């Protein structure tokens, strides 16, 4: 007799525990305000990433097409996996002195691990992170980027 009671008790307790779980999931059904799913590709226009989000390394230019990179190569030294390559050239400045300047600042997005050491260690704050995160391309060569824009110059006052 006792075993039968225990058996029935077990079944009732089991069903009760299942109902308890169903109550949680069921309650969400009637609370649409708790839905957190974002409809990603269609909400692309008003999707704002956080300011510090590490999307890709960029070199900000001002409206006169000037950047702050002096071509010192500290970012290249600090990069752990050879993502950055600074190709520098020698120019003759207005007062006749020889000066180092960048020819090309090559950034290989496909190799970047977003450790932020280049941005952090740059002495003249020439590099920054952009919030762009959709990096997929069809051709791998497109991931090799030149960060300085064509015809750009060093900003005045940056040594």
């Amino acid at each position, binding site marked *: 007799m006792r075993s039968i009671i225990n058996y029935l008790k077990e079944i009732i*307790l089991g069903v009760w*525990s299942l109902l308890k779980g169903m109550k949680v*999931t069921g309650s969400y059904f009637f609370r649409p305000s708790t839905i957190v799913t974002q409809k990603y590709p269609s909400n692309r226009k008003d999707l704002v990433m956080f300011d510090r989000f590490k999307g890709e390394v960029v070199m900000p230019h001002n409206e006169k097409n000037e950047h702050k990179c002096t071509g010192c190569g500290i970012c290249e030294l600090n990069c752990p996996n050879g993502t950055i390559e600074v190709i520098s050239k020698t120019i003759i400045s207005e007062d006749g002195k020889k000066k180092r300047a960048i020819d090309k600042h090559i950034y290989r997005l496909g190799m970047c691990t977003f450790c*932020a050491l280049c941005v952090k260690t740059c002495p003249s704050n020439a590099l920054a992170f952009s919030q762009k995160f959709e990096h997929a391309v069809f051709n791998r060569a497109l991931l090799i980027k030149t960060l300085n824009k064509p015809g750009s110059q060093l900003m005045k006052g940056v040594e």
Partner: protein
Amino acid sequence: MEEEVKNITPDERQEYVINMGPQHPSTHGVLRLVVSLKGEIVKNIEPHIGYIHRGIEKMCESITYPQIIHLTDRMDYLSAHINNEAVCLNVEKALEVDIPDRIKVIRTIMSELTRIQSHQLWWASFGMDLGGLTCFFYGLRDREKILDIFEETCGGRMLVSYNCPGGVMYDIHPNFQKRVKDFIKYFRKILPEYDQLLSGNVIFHERSKGIGKLSLEDAISYGVTGPTGRASGFSCDVRKHEPYSAYDRITFKEILHTEGDTYSRYIARIDEMWESMNIIEQLIDNIPEGPFAVKMKPIIKLPEGEYYQRVETARGELGVYIISDGNKNPYRVKFRSPNFVNLSVFNHIVKGFKIADLVAIGGSLDLVIPDIDR
């Protein structure tokens, strides 16, 4: 392989050997298990690792100390911040740098947030392993809130790279404290729901209670740490026994259970989430003022010698062992990863159980494969 076939005894010939993984959803990574079965009973399992070996320890020998940090992110990607902290603490210990309180508190809060999000993902996937798909959605929904906090302050979601020798990369975001408080308020309400969904479920009890028992003696002799070891009664919390960062100024209790079965490993992790929230609440309102990083030399060179630092990750004790010969690169780096040691006990506790229990026990060990292979 041919020799192995010849040496099989008549008794072993009865066994049915199947291959589980490396692409199996319940191994949570590329772990391959060669499972010997007799009927439905597991006789023996043989883990084959190395599918995601990247040679991180060797790579560390050719790069500088600040650069090592981003590689440790990619070992145990669920406790990325704690791995970073381990290397930084070791470098700071070697250089005998005094770390301001602000950095210690920030690191501790971040570590505990990492622990919560790791356990949330574990809860989600453990529920899914045992057939409760709802758990997966609920766990990831709540984890997203912590990842948003990380993204706002560190710039990364999983691979944060937030620590650097001498401090942290950026100061905390102005919204940080408010967001963390909001999260704790939210999660204190949600965590009982986890219990209603899974912990009290009768099917879950049947599948986890008494399954995969790990005794205290075995836990100690195999060196199993973390919630897995503490569920067997092995007091192994590094935060308690060898406090680092700000753990010496807060009160928290070490979660200890004595049963050592799958269920107690589950409960240990749920309790740890409660305890982590307690720790964060003690610290979040009194983050001291001060700099967020100590000025270090541009090229960090450790003095000649051997250095060891251990921390408590979400899965157990992580040790970082650095031998320096005085150069800017370490001579040798060795990581004592908790997952590799926890995997070694798998074969011992799974013997004699059914093949369906293999998934439950494997899930309760909470293995992260990139940390095993490094």
